[in-house]
């Protein structure tokens, strides 16, 4: 029994160390797989999440710049947010409401906010909707520093919803994105598979 318990605790230790809690998202999104192996940048990521019903959520993971972002949004969109409401915004994982509802959302306490079904940031039309302003003010907040633009969409998101998001970025002269995907291996016998095999054997012979 003792060896058994020992092994069990070894496994326990492994899982404790290997676990990395993922930040809570406002929506559940199942991302498609891709053969790409680029790691998702961990900081300075402006993420636009699109769920399967085409609701759009925005989030920024750097609290310092998030502060600047919400201050910008507050002045340019004339929202009249109090410093306390801005603090709630900084602590919130992601928001997906039109500007008209933002103040109301931020007045809720964090627990109640999780339960609210957010309608998504409007970005339907060719002007990029309100997402356009979010992107613009995020870029202003970063003022030339490197900002990673991430798009995370669901498998079942329709293409027009994705295109609207791209459009909002394009209006701000942003053309480089990272799409969040689940890792997959290159299928056997394809050119990419061959190239990767060569790379591996090349590294082995070095």
């Amino acid at each position, binding site marked *: 029994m003792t060896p058994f318990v020992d092994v069990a605790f070894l496994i326990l230790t492994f899982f404790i160390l290997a676990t990395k809690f993922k930040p809570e998202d406002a929506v559940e999104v199942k991302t498609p797989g*891709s053969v790409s192996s*680029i790691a998702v940048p961990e900081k300075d990521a402006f993420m636009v999440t699109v769920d399967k019903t085409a609701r759009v959520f925005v989030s920024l993971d750097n609290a310092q710049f998030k502060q600047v972002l919400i201050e910008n949004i507050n002045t340019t969109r004339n929202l009249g947010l109090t410093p306390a409401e801005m603090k709630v915004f900084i602590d919130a994982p992601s928001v997906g409401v039109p500007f008209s509802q933002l103040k109301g959302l931020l007045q809720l306490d964090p627990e109640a906010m999780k339960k609210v079904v957010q309608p998504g940031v409007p970005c339907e039309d060719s002007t990029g909707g309100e997402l356009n302003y979010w992107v613009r003010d995020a870029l202003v907040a970063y003022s030339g520093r490197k900002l990673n633009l991430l798009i995370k969409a669901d498998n079942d998101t*329709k293409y027009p919803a994705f295109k609207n998001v791209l459009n909002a970025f*394009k209006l701000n002269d942003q*053309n480089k994105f990272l799409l*969040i995907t689940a*890792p*997959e291996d290159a299928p056997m016998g*394809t*050119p990419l598979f061959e190239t990767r095999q060569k790379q591996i054997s090349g590294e082995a012979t070095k």
Partner: protein
Amino acid sequence: MASMDTGGGDEGHKKGPGVKKAKKLSTRVDMTPMVDLGFLLITFFIFTTTMAQPTAMNLFLPKDVQKPEEQNKVKESGAFTIILGKEDQIYYYEGLDPTKLQASNFKGIREEILRKKQTTNLEDLVVILKPTPDATYKNTVDILDEMTICEIKRYAMVDVAPQEYQLVKITEAAAGIK
């Protein structure tokens, strides 16, 4: 189940006369609750662990050009257009004539792309991806991924032309895809 008390053999051991029997306390502890808790934690961490970290896929889009003379021209021999339709269906045609539309799916399209790649001058080859409004995001990512898998250097993602969309709709109606 997990009784670990092995002490208890004291009675049978006789000391000499007049020697007081020192009561020997067992140093063994019942570990059952600890082990139970251990397993509970293992189960918890197994369920919460995300082993595969998400990866990111690069997507570079060209700037919109307004003037037609600034747009890149595609040679007819090198053009290969892929239209993403409903229900994970793919339609493709070679050259610039959309009426030569052929149906395929995500399993079959790789062969077609590779065949085109082999039979065409690589400098002329341009794959044009046109997701229709009925295509899903997964289809879009999959076809972009297919470009990486087949190592297509030049590809473009553009909106589907109305007449092509009409053709696709007719084909879909004929094939009974709702």
